[in-house]
Every structure is written in structure tokens, then in C-alpha cells.
């Protein structure tokens, strides 16, 4: 942590951020009180995005609600319906066929891959490192395409329904899924190396906006935010649903709590997600995909699943009618955002943007040329591999200038161990 400066004459200045601003994608209004360059207090105003989904859900039938809760958040659009469906399935007491379980697992994990890569890209953009932004978004494109192929839409998949899945993924498409995630592995590995390796990113991310283990527990944060502070919670392991107890994978945790740890958790979770998808495709049995639920009896239940951002929690109460009488949603960002008060206060204003990026996505970017002329040979065009070699050379130069150990010594063995 950096020390809190007293500021100029101890005078506080209010910096309003939002509700519409170039950095963050969604309308949120942050008030930062600063003394000099240091943030000393902050507050958050929301409700620009409030649509009243919980109330609207009580006017939809049980089968229509998944379509509605898919639109709570477009990036977690397979986990919200799944949490709701788990709650309703608990009320009905129905058993989901194994093939449906594996197929739900595939879609949620494909979504996790695209969401984590999206976050890495946006984090790079927050730092003004648009190469990472462009790379990460380019590498998530095959995942979006395969999701469109197997569910019919690039976002908002509508694949799960009460008692099974809405559309069976035919066995012929399984090879395409494996091919898509395989094409993602190499670039993600390269991206991980580049992020862990880069002295500039180290300077911007290490020991920045640290959320300590105690604060993580005190603010009840979930998901990668908690796991990066050394709190090993993950609904997929703690209360297994679908096929997560039938496949082999690891919960990634790091004790540091800074933004670098959050980036590492998300990047390494991408590899875990790829492993899960491949196992789910390999083990997926043939058979029914729908338990054929006819009606929902009176009762109440909760359902929770691990969204890319943390635990998504749904509570449903039924009186035996067509619609839920109460539907409560608690999304992961709702508990993660208040932790800004623990992580951002005491930071410099410039670091607060990336501290917020740990949970919030953003937009706007600058396109870079992918093809350049080589200055030595004059007219030869350089391909991606040569450009990457140039970047590695630059990194080595930085390491030499800053007197840091080369990447292979600092991170190589540990990374290989984690990827094994």
C-alpha cells in the first residue's frame, strides 16, 4: 500500500466520475474526494440502470422468467437463468438428465472463457495498453462464434430451461467446440506470459489497490475478487451443480489481493475453463435432455451458481400458480463494488481506474496497425510472430534497465506447474 499524503493544505476536492463518461461502459456515478493526488473518500450513486426486473418477474410465467433474467447482465447471460432454474428445480424436486447437465456446463464455461478474456482486454485498455485489449478481444472471437453455433446467439444463449436444456447440442458439433477452445489455448498462454512478464504492467498492477484477506472477508466479496485475496470460495466446488463434481479442475487462488493477483486468477481460470469444456465434451453421455416438468408446486428455494464475476444468488417463492410470487436476485458485482472503499481509498487517482476495472468493464479504444514495414529491409511486411518477438526484445530491454530477473526465472516454473 502507498502512504496517504496530507494533500495541499488538507483541502479536499470532489471529482465526479459519471454517470456517462468515456472510461466505463455503464452509467454509474462515482464521487471521489481527493487531497492532492490521493483519494481519501469515495461514494457511489447507482439506479441509472435499474429496470425493476424482480417485480417484472412476478408478472411472467415460470418459463418466461429465464428469458428475462438473461437480460440482467449480458456478459453473465447463462448463469442468471441457471441460478433461477436451480431454485425452481429444487421446488419441483426434479432430477436433471445427465446429458443436459454436461451441456449446461459446456455453455457456462465457454461463457467464462469469453468473459475473462473480455475483462483482460478491458483492463489493458484501462491502463492505456491497447495491444492487450485488441489481442484479448481477437482471441475471444472463436468462442463467441462457437456459442452462436451451438446455442443460436452470440450473447443471451437461452440454452437452459426448467428440467433440462431447451435445445440439444448435437454430437456432430462437439468436435467444433473442442477445436474452438483449442484455438483459444495457445493465444491465451501467450497473453498470460505477456501480462505476467511485462515490467510496465508490473509497475501499474503490483501492490495497487490491495484488498487484504481480512477486508475481503469483511466486505463478503465473491468470485475472482475473493480468490485473488486468498479466500478460496467457489460455488462450483463448495456446492457442486451440473457436471462440476464429475470433471477434474482446480480453484485458482492467490494471496496478494492486488490487481495483478486478480488478473492472474482470471487468466489461469480461463485455462481451467478450457479444461472443463474439453472434459464435458469428452464425457457427455447420450440420452434425454429434458425432465418434462409440467407444473411448479408451492414452495420456496434458493439457487446459486458461480458466474464469471462471483456468486449469483436467486431466491424464488411459488404459490402453485403460473408465476413466481417473489423472486430475489443478488448479483456478484453488488457485493464486489462496495469493496472499492477498502481497495481504492489511499490510492492515487490514476490507479483508481484500474482498481475499478477489477469488477467493472469499460469501452472505447484505439485501433493499431497489425502490419508494418521493416525499417531494415525496407519493403518487407512483418507478421504477428515477428512483432511478438520485437515485443519480447523490448521487455528484455526493460528488465535490464530496471534490473529485474528475467521472466523465466521469476514465473516460468510456477506457470508450468499451474498449467500442468
Amino acid at each position, binding site marked *: 500500500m502507498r502512504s496517504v499524503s496530507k494533500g495541499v493544505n488538507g483541502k479536499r476536492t470532489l471529482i465526479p466520475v459519471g454517470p456517462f463518461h*468515456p472510461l466505463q461502459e455503464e452509467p454509474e456515478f462515482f464521487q471521489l474526494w481527493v487531497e492532492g493526488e490521493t483519494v481519501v473518500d469515495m461514494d457511489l450513486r447507482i439506479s441509472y440502470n435499474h429496470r425493476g426486473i424482480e417485480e417484472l418477474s412476478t408478472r411472467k410465467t415460470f418459463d418466461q422468467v429465464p428469458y428475462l433474467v438473461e437480460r440482467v447482465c449480458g456478459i453473465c447471460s447463462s448463469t442468471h437463468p441457471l441460478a433461477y432454474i436451480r431454485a425452481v428445480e429444487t421446488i419441483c424436486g426434479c432430477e436433471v438428465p445427465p446429458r443436459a447437465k454436461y451441456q449446461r456446463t459446456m455453455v457456462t464455461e465457454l461463457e467464462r472463457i469469453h468473459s475473462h478474456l473480455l475483462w483482460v482486454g478491458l483492463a489493458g485498455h484501462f491502463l492505456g495498453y491497447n495491444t492487450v485489449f485488441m489481442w484479448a478481444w481477437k482471441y475471444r472471437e472463436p468462442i463467441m462464434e462457437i456459442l452462436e453455433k451451438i446455442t443460436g446467439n452470440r450473447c443471451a444463449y437461452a440454452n437452459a430451461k426448467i428440467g433440462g436444456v431447451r435445445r440439444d447440442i448435437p454430437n456432430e458439433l462437439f468436435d467444433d467446440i473442442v477445436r474452438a477452445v483449442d484455438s483459444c489455448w495457445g493465444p491465451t498462454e501467450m497473453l498470460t506470459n505477456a501480462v505476467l512478464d511485462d515490467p510496465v504492467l508490473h509497475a501499474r498492477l503490483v501492490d495497487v489497490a490491495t484488498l487484504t484477506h481480512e477486508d475481503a472477508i469483511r466486505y463478503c466479496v465473491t468470485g475472482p475478487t475473493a480468490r485473488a485475496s486468498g479466500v478460496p470460495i467457489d460455488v462450483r466446488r463448495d456446492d457442486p451443480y451440473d457436471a462440476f463434481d464429475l470433471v477434474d479442475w482446480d480453484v485458482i487462488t492467490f494471496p496478494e489481493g492486488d490487481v495483478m493477483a486478480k488478473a492472474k486468477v482470471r487468466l489461469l481460470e480461463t485455462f481451467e475453463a478450457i479444461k472443463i469444456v474439453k472434459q464435458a465434451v469428452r464425457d457427455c453421455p447420450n440420452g434425454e435432455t429434458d425432465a418434462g416438468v409440467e407444473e411448479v408446486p408451492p414452495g420456496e428455494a434458493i439457487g446459486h451458481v458461480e458466474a464469471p464475476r462471483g456468486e449469483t444468488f436467486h431466491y424464488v417463492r411459488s404459490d402453485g400458480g403460473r408465476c413466481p410470487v417473489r423472486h430475489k436476485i443478488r448479483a456478484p458485482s453488488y457485493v464486489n463494488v462496495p469493496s472499492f472503499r477498502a481497495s481504492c481509498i489511499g490510492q492515487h487517482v490514476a490507479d483508481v481506474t484500474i482498481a475499478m476495472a477489477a469488477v467493472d468493464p469499460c469501452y472505447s479504444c484505439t485501433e493499431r496497425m*497489425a502490419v508494418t514495414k521493416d525499417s531494415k529491409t525496407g519493403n518487407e511486411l512483418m507478421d504477428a510472430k515477428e512483432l511478438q518477438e520485437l515485443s519480447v526484445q523490448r521487455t528484455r530491454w526493460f528488465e535490464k534497465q530496471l534490473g529485474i530477473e528475467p521472466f523465466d526465472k521469476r514465473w516460468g516454473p510456477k506457470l508450468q506447474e499451474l498449467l500442468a
Partner: protein
Amino acid sequence: MNWKFWSLKKSLFVYHVNAGACNNCDIEILELLTPAYDVERFGIILVGSPRHADVLLVTGVCTRQVKKRLQELYLQTAKPCVVMCIGACALAQGIFAEAYHVGPCVDEVIREVDPNAIIAYVPGCPPKPEAMIMAVVKTWQKLDELAAAEPKPVAPALPEVAGA
């Protein structure tokens, strides 16, 4: 007016307004700017301020909290400005039409402050990036029509310089 249309369609600077969307449309807009679709080839670029914008990309239902701010944003843009309503919510509020915290439709909100606003609609939930590119092409064609309806631009006569 003619000069304005002529210069407006050269390189569209877009400003993105999330008026209560679920992020689906927003990530598809970002997808447009990244290597997969890369609309900067056509001179389309995101800007950080509505004062620099030729086009407002509005996504999401216009919630009651956002309504006044959306009108303020529209008034800040340089005119003529094209408003593109992206996605089912911005078009006709989609599934949220009956919700209690939703204001009027986006086009009604804009027309309240400027009855002659140019508004384009891109349907879909979310629209595919290809559909958004198609919408830009159609907007370009429409701007051509609007420009053709006006008299041709005439360059101002230069004063004669003695001894030149």
C-alpha cells in the same frame, strides 16, 4: 445545411450511451472496434465526449433516471447528429416495456427536445455486429439523400489579389 451533411458523413465519430442496457449490445459494439470487425477502417471511431460526436449510439431502455441526462447529452452534440437506437430495448423497450422504472422510448425522449432529430433503428437482441455495420451503411445512404435534397455547395469566390 448541405455543407453540414457533406462533412458529417466523411468520418463518423460515435459516442456510446448506455441508457440502461444489459451489456449485450455494449459488448457487441466493442466487438465492432476490435480486430474481428474493425470499423475504424471506415473512419468510424469512438470518442470520449458527446461534444465531439456525430452519432449517438444509444443502447438499452431509457430508465427514468437516465431520461433527463440523455436529453442533455443529445443537446451537447454538434448538429446535425444522428441517433442510432441499438437493440430491442432502445427501439421499443423490449421485454422491459411493463417495468416500473422505465421512461418513454428513446426516440420519444430525443424528439421531446428536437422534433427533427435523425433517428436510425437497429433491431435485434443483441443486433449482430454485421447488422450494426449495415445500419451505418443505410444511414450513409440516407444522409446522401438528405444532402441531395439541398442545393449544391458553392465555394465562396476568392478576392482577387493585385499583382498575383
